């Protein structure tokens, strides 16, 4: 199902979307599939699966470290699509940097997304100004949405341009900064969501960057259609690798997902 339909289905159940991010191949390719299963069991609605890049400029230290580890363990674009195809029972979105899409070839990358059942593609270093070639291919295939980001610094003019071509959902960047769990969520979200809604009322808005607690998710879901949690999952995996057994790490991830998911239910 297309991403927008997923949001619609959730809305009918009086729920918002929990979008969980993990870096593919961290700690291993098999490990990612087990972690994904735990997140699905915990109730994640959309799984954002990161294809790691050597130079992730939009990411904070947590995801950066996971990317390095994953690449060292042999992750590459071929392996990525195998891992992604093996994950079932959840809508999947790919997050990666533009050079990896370019080197595979735009057409091939989108075709591979389609075969692996990936419904959306987030490319943090591909602003709307440079997105035309990839957007054209996504539109032609009509299976994978190109997900755009909007930040507190996005001007009205650019916001209109982004919302004109956006589909699937809009990734609302809650703060100025890189990815990473934070103690409090940003005050910038409410005014930003209002600004977006003045331009376009009917595209799902998911808020990311800095969200790590059930109460963050609940606050975000009061105004947006979904919450994106990334670095907090990576930290759980990191912690699990250091101390506990795999089974208890997976259990903890499942429980954590469940606690976050509870924040998305409006009744």
């Amino acid at each position, binding site marked *: 199902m297309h991403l927008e339909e997923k949001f619609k289905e959730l809305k009918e159940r009086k729920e918002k979307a929990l979008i969980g991010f993990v870096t593919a191949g961290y700690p291993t390719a098999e490990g990612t599939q087990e972690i994904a299963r735990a997140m699905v069991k915990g109730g994640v609605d959309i799984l954002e699966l990161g294809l790691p*890049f*050597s*130079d*992730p*400029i*939009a990411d*904070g*230290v947590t995801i*950066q*470290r996971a990317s*390095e580890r994953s*690449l060292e363990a042999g992750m*590459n*674009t*071929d392996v990525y699509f195998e891992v992604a195809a093996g994950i079932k029972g959840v809508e999947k979105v790919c997050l990666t*940097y*533009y*050079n*990896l*899409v*370019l*080197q*595979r070839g735009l057409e091939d990358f989108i075709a591979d997304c389609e075969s692996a059942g990936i419904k959306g593609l987030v490319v*943090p*270093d*591909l*602003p709307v*100004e*440079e997105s035309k070639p990839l957007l054209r291919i996504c539109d032609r295939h009509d299976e994978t949405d190109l997900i*755009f*980001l*909007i*930040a*507190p*610094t*996005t*001007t009205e003019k*650019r916001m209109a341009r982004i919302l004109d071509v956006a589909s699937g959902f809009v990734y609302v*960047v809650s703060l*100025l*900064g*890189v990815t990473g769990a934070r103690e409090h969520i940003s005050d910038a979200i409410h005014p930003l969501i209002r600004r977006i809604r003045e331009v376009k009322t009917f595209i799902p808005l998911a808020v990311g960057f800095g969200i790590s607690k059930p109460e963050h998710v609940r606050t975000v879901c009061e105004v947006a259609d979904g919450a994106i949690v990334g670095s907090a999952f990576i930290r759980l995996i990191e912690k699990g690798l250091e101390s506990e057994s795999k089974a208890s790490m997976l259990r903890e991830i499942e429980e954590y997902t469940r606690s976050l998911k509870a924040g998305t239910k409006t009744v």
Partner: protein
Amino acid sequence: MSSYFIFDKIIVKENMQSRPDEHGKYGIYGGKFAPEVLMSALEELEKAFNRFYSDKRFKEELNRLLRTYAGRPTSLYFAQNLSERYGAKIYLKREDLVHGGAHKLNNTLGQCLLAKHMGKKRIIAETGAGQHGVASAMAAAVLGLECEVYMGTEDIERQKLNVFRMELLGARVNPVDSGSKTLKDAINESMRDWVTNVENTYYLIGSVVGPHPYPLMVREFQRVIGNETKEQIRDAEGRLPDTIVACVGGGSNAMGIFYDFLDDDAVELVGVEAAGKGLETGEHGASICAGTEGVLHGMYSKLLQDEHGQIKQSYSFAPGLDYPGVGPELAYLADSGRVKMVSATDEETLIAFEILSKLEGIIPALESAHAVHYAIEEAKAKAKERKENLIVVNLSGRGDKDIFLVEKVLGGECK
């Protein structure tokens, strides 16, 4: 003398005005591949640059700094001993004499002045060899701005002297321990800082790389090198040179000296990349000679990468050339054939480094010694053909920062 200075007489010929285009593209290269958070800052920067760059008072202020603080114009020195030995006329554009010891200050003064006019109080910069970091710290100090420099821990180890200099100049040096712990990772970390502090911070990029408008701005602030050279070589020789040689890491000293000669078709422009341990070993920094097209640090350019698009670690014993990308305009000029790109290994460069030190009493930066190597080879080749040959080498920096490294390589024995 005043005619030497930049901005007094900028001759922009028609075919150049089209580059970059309105999207910041040089042919297929360049552009703005930046995170959404930075897009409005890049727009603001472009507007500010266009406004101040055409402002008479801004130019006067920058010219005053270039003249009285940086020590411009730098001399164009006829290297007589080198010339006699190799049978050519070899001139050195002495950017090593710029305050701080490298051409980097031309750009940092321009950008810090721009930042000041934009009302930004905090400057961040990345550095490889430490030269851009030192130049940033100097420009920030003289213009009363706060300065933080990101530097890979590998480079901190290689260039301790420059770290100490930056700290003396009042800058804070932030070590970067991720990835290859060199220039590319320092750029990543600077971009992360900028994303976080974009509202009060100016990101001072040190080379003709990054998203538009950086490659354009840095080129414009470095054009003073070629502008002076053109006048000086005419005064000295009554004609333009046959060849101009510059080393290429990101490409700022090369674009600086090449740009005003682009329309002089008879002048051969040669960029020398770092072949490190040899192009065939894979341990080098030759993004144009041995790289492929892709996106890194906000630009579409030539990169060192694997077949999946992961960026490879570059290598050169000259930290200023140890970068897996290159400025988009140079990639464009290389494709078009206007600039000839070659490379020199560490070993070849070290020989040129010693020759210049001994023959002319000038210790070049290891980066610049790559260009000296090519000039010597070119002189030798043309001497065989018994052709008159006028070569200008951009001596982009002095080698004091490298002496410990060279001592280590030579095993403590200077030949």
